[in-house]
């Protein structure tokens, strides 16, 4: 039973560029949440997708957007990258919006 997978593992981008991160949920899960974890900090909630819709959003600008596909996988897009966007981006999946969240290994994004 595959757990939550994320790609790529590492990514280096330049300021002003755009990036897309991908997440495949654990088998049987239909809800995906995205978190940003800056170095030395706890994860911060970005948004959650359920039934292909954004259900709730954290305190992140519109440069952060997402999508959920019919197979429940999800993408996180960040436009006009800033140095401050450098972080570990974690994806978590759950079976429905109210059950335990299982995390993927994360994507380390570095913006130079």
């Amino acid at each position: 039973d595959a757990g939550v997978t994320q790609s790529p593992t590492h990514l280096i981008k330049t300021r002003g560029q755009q990036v897309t991160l991908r997440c495949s949920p654990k088998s049987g899960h239909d809800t995906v949440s995205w978190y940003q974890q800056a170095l030395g900090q706890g994860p911060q909630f970005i948004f959650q997708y359920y039934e292909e819709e954004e259900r709730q959003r954290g305190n992140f600008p519109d440069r952060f957007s997402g999508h959920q596909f019919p197979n429940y996988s999800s993408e996180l897009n960040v436009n006009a990258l800033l140095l401050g966007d450098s972080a570990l981006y974690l994806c978590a999946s759950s079976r429905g919006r109210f059950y335990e969240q299982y995390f993927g290994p994360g994507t380390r994004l570095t913006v130079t």
Partner: protein
Amino acid sequence: AQTVTQSQPEMSVQEAETVTLSCTYDTSESDYYLFWYKQPPSRQMILVIRQEAYKQQNATENRFSVNFQKAAKSFSLKISDSQLGDAAMYFCAYRRAEIQGAQKLVFGQGTRLTINP
């Protein structure tokens, strides 16, 4: 808004001994869940233990147990018989229990636990 505070940036313990990590939280909700997650250097966030606020009994998972004090809004994690594999960042997290709305996790800043052989 709910907040979670971990006041111990770093802790260390001798192998086989017991260590307690502290966590306090602030909420106006009466029903919620609390969690401890472990994040080793591999970065994967692993659920260690969870506690439902409506349950008075403290949760236990093998060597891991919690001391949940609802009135004090305190939720500490005790690790008994510490092992080298327990070395990691530990995060305390809160989640509302309401049916409506997305159930985001609110995390503390983390405590780095070192195990000395």
